[in-house]
């Protein structure tokens, strides 16, 4: 063996592991150095301004994290309400400040546990919250005033039902619903382009979304009834520029409807929350948050008529990228998650739900979730990152990149406008096509080695006992017994509740839907009677002339005839 070969083997070859690309993850070409020329056209007051000042590029509060740290939130959802309740209490004790609620996949899309298609995903990823009592057990002993709850579900029916459950519980406990805090995603675009939710067709989803915003503005002012979502479209294939355009486009489309059809203005709603993604590309992610705040401020003011500072200032809630996490050598995911947390804090986000290091293997273990919280505590208390607001503000590169993202996203928004707007782009499948193109481009880059992912297509290496231990902790599938118990429980509920009261309440849901009145109050009252999620979804669908079961697999329960009787013109 020559000396040269030996050097290579023990890693002295400096070109090994060299850079393979010169553009960001979204494809923005980069120079090696940026200087004052690259941002010469910028004006401080117009384009940046101090934190807390329009256009909020540098953050929405003057002192940001000095006054209030970001909300530390993540989804904690196990198979049963009791397990989930216990975990909530433990996580709050460990420093979690927001409870992110999720249900199993069938419930999220309006399907009940005894539906023939429910078995596979029943109790996976969350409880089966088919009726109010499941929420009462899940939230037993937990405060409902002044704690942040987030509803992260896929379907619009979930936003409607689970918001109604929260309000119903507060009213049953004698609490003031005006003190309900938190947010619901309630995004009809995400429900279609990412999840293709069968619960509500677009016309119903579009209307219920507005009902929720309208009701929330009048009754639960601290609750954000709508948080346009960029996370899941990005995770499905959009790049950072398209994510920014998509989430701004969605917000503009829904708020334009709200102003026109309901007479509710942005000023009545206050600050808007976007749920966005923190991806692998560090500076691009930071620049993305800064650009989105600035773009939203301009849209809110110039397009949507906002006049208050609150209505122009965008809060950003984050879910860090689950897609970026790898099965191979999962210990490396700790580095990925930490970098993503750091990009969020440097980008001035307002809430953070970090993915877990074992997320590519299964649902997160408790210890992995604690790592997420501890990593945020380390960034805060050991690394001292949040002591100064927008610490990268003024960096030639970061300011230039922020401008590039704004310019790119504006081009996409102009194309959407040209194609008839967001709703037209949803109906025509153009938005879905964008996701598919993005996904294809990403896959090609990975295949060609233009995007290196450690452990996956580069630096594979060996897995040792630490990595194997992470893999061994993945979650257990809900047992057959637990699934059968859940099916028995919903059947028992249907038998033991006061059926006439349920019918009366569902009748009101049906009528309100048909008569184009706001359905939220009738749904809250129906929830209190023990009406189930599938029944509420079915009755709303029928008021629009659709079949009862979203999947068309089960027939309508016979008592639904009494709900709809006399409402079809005799």
């Amino acid at each position, binding site marked *: 063996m020559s000396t040269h070969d030996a050097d290579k083997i023990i890693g002295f070859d400096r070109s090994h592991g060299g850079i393979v690309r010169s553009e960001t993850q979204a494809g923005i070409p980069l120079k090696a150095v940026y200087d004052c020329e690259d941002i010469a056209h910028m004006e401080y007051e117009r384009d940046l301004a101090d934190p807390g000042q329009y256009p909020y590029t540098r953050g929405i509060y003057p002192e940001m994290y000095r006054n209030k740290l970001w909300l530390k939130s993540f989804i904690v959802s196990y198979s049963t309400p009791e397990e989930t309740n216990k975990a909530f209490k433990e996580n709050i004790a460990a420093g979690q400040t927001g409870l992110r609620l999720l249900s199993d996949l069938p419930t999220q899309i309006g399907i009940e546990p005894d539906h023939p*298609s429910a078995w*596979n*995903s029943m109790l996976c990823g969350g409880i089966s919250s088919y009726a109010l009592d499941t929420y009462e057990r899940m939230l037993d002993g937990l405060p409902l005033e002044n704690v942040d709850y987030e509803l992260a579900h896929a379907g619009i029916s979930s936003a409607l039902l689970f918001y109604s459950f929260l309000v119903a519980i507060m009213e049953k406990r004698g609490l003031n619903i005006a003190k309900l805090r938190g947010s619901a995603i309630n995004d009809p675009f995400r429900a279609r382009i*990412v999840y293709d939710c069968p619960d509500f067709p677009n016309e119903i989803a579009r209307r219920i979304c507005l009902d929720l915003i309208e009701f929330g503005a009048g009754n639960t002012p601290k609750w954000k009834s709508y948080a346009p979502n960029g996370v899941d479209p990005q995770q*499905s294939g959009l790049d950072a520029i398209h994510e920014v355009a998509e989430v701004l486009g969605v917000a503009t489309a829904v708020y334009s409807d709200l102003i026109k059809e309901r007479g509710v203005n942005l000023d009545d709603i206050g600050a808007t929350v976007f749920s966005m993604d923190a991806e692998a590309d560090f500076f691009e992610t930071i620049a993305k948050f800064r650009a989105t705040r600035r773009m939203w401020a301009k849209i809110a003011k110039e397009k949507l008529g906002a006049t208050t500072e609150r209505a122009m200032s965008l809060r950003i809630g984050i879910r860090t990228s689950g897609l970026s996490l*790898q099965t191979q050598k999962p210990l490396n995911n700790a580095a990925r998650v930490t970098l993503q947390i750091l990009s969020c804090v440097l980008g001035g986000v307002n809430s953070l739900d970090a993915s877990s290091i074992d997320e*590519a293997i299964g649902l997160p273990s408790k210890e992995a979730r604690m790592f997420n919280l501890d990593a945020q505590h380390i960034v805060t208390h050991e690394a001292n990152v949040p002591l100064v607001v927008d610490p990268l503000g003024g960096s030639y590169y970061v300011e230039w990149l922020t401008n590039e993202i704004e310019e790119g996203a504006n081009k996409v928004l102009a194309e959407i406008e040209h194609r008839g707007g967001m709703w037209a782009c949803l109906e025509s499948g153009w938005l879905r096509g964008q996701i598919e193109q993005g*996904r294809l481009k990403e896959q090609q880059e990975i295949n060609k080695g233009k995007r290196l992912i450690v452990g996956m297509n580069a630096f594979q290496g060996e897995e040792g006992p630490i990595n194997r231990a992470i893999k061994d902790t993945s979650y257990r*599938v809900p047992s057959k017994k637990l699934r059968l118990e859940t099916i028995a429980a919903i059947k028992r509920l249907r038998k033991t509740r006061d059926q006439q009261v349920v019918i009366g309440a569902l009748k009101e849901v049906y009528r309100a839907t048909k008569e184009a009145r706001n359905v939220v109050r009738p749904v809250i009252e129906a929830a209190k009677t023990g009406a189930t999620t599938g029944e509420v979804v079915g009755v709303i669908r029928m008021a629009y002339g659709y079949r009862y079961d979203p999947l068309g697999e089960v027939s309508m329960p016979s008592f639904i005839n009494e709900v709809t009787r006399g409402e079809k013109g005799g």
Partner: protein
Amino acid sequence: MVNQEKKIKILLAQFPLESHSRGLITVAGMLRDAGMEVILMGNARSEQIIKVAIQESADVVGISSYCGGELALGDELLSIADKEGIKDHTIFVLGGIFPPNNTPRLKEIGFNAVFPPSATKEEIVNNIKSAIAAK
């Protein structure tokens, strides 16, 4: 044995109710690239999957699973395939996110190949081809 000259026909589906479709769509693209004819079915129950597999004379049935039903519903799928008489001449493969120690159990149930998230395009294509050759 399936004629190697013929284009391999593969039916891809997920057990309901699955919302994680990115894996399935990505693999569909890889298999098309490799010259296979792909029928993308999406969410479907076992009996529906087998019905379409028979109608389309699929050489391969591929399942993508993320929600934990792979053992129970995989078993159901292969039982129905057996009853309908296609198990012996059809290849069944499954991929997705599931506990690593389910792989041997899925093979016991009757899946000819099982792909964890780390599986590469080459592994998937080669395993399908060699499973067909071995039948």
